[in-house]
């Protein structure tokens, strides 16, 4: 088939298409679907009894605020990256809150280490939050995948990595509302660590998760 014939084929069979909404609008849709689910999960387990004290603690606010911002920024970057022409540098928007999340958890670990030494690490072994983080982040992750599959990512590894980071960070922020007893070491290993691990895993399988027929070669 020559190119002129292909152009004729493509244009003569042209059907109108529904234009992809902007990343901001799709972020709104994602939140509209995810927030009620996270609220229902929180309602099911019940708010943690010490929530009022936590909300008066700057470290808690900074840590979970940074997790929430990481989730929002990573979700926006993932959605923006599902449009051809996305500049990779814009993915950095998620890096700033992610570093703040990591730094606030690291600072807490340092304070716990100075106070309790090796015994501060005990909580890491006894408290394993990965299933809860995965559970809270599952619906946001599925919703985000559906929204991303409507777009066309030319860099599925980056998009999937950002999407997993968004879901895990949002799940972690929601978890802080109903899951008590998390030390800074638990936050660093199980919350930040899970987000990083899930993000790397999703990145490795990105092209399978977000495969679009238009991105595969015809022959």
């Amino acid at each position, binding site marked *: 088939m020559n190119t002129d014939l292909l152009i004729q084929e493509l244009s003569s069979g*042209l059907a109108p298409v529904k234009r992809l909404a902007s990343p901001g609008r799709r972020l709104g849709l994602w939140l509209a679907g995810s927030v009620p689910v996270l609220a229902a999960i929180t309602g099911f387990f019940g708010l943690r009894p010490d929530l009022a004290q936590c909300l008066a603690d700057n470290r808690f606010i900074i840590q979970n605020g940074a997790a929430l911002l990481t989730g929002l920024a990573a979700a926006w970057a993932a959605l923006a990256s599902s449009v051809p022409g996305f500049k990779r540098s814009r993915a950095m928007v998620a890096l700033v809150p992610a570093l703040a999340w990591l730094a606030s958890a690291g600072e807490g670990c340092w304070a716990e280490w100075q106070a309790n030494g090796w015994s501060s690490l005990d909580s890491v072994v006894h408290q394993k939050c990965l299933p809860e983080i995965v559970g809270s982040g599952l619906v946001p992750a599925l919703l985000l995948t559906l929204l991303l599959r409507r777009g066309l990512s030319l860099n599925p590894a980056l998009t999937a990595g950002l999407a997993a980071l968004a879901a895990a960070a949002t799940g972690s922020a929601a978890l802080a509302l109903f899951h008590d007893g998390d030390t800074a070491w638990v936050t660093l290993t199980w919350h930040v660590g899970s987000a990083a691990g899930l993000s790397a895993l999703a990145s490795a399988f990105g092209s399978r998760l977000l495969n679009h027929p238009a991105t595969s070669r015809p022959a």
Partner: protein
Amino acid sequence: MINDRAKHLEDSARWGAWMQAAQDGDQVAYGRLLAEVAPVARRMAARQLAASGVAEDMEDVVQEILLTLHGARHTYDPARPFLPWFAAIVDHRVKDGLRSRRRHQGRETDIDAVPETFLSQAANTSATDRMDLGKAVAKLPAGQRQAVEMLKIKEMSLAEASAASGQSVPALKVAMHRALKTLKGMLGP
């Protein structure tokens, strides 16, 4: 230099407007757009391939770019310039082609020896022909193999194959055309 930039901006604005019309189903605008961007895609891809020192069939590359653009047309935002969106598709398609070429080169070995069984009776029976054809089809690249399997072996219509594979009808036609060309090359005159 300033004139070049002004022309780029003018082209980008015109193509953006045509793409916006194409998203609403305007076939004439889409035909014009594809006819104008095809040579641009050819130039951009040729530059990238020359920099990599690779010689590809340029028409194949251009057709793959047009098919990708077709599948991605819903992602174009008329509020943004057309050229960066289009350049990203060209870049992706060329790099993907180069990656695929490297993968195939790693698996294939050139054989110079001419098979000695061409003249024997046994080598020319229909059963052997079917076997050879089956082996040749199995060696086709995935997209071409899928087109042959669906359109020729399972005898699906283009519409059915398109629905089953997620590929557009023109993409399947291109794949089938290339599969026949590849099979001809494999099985000899």
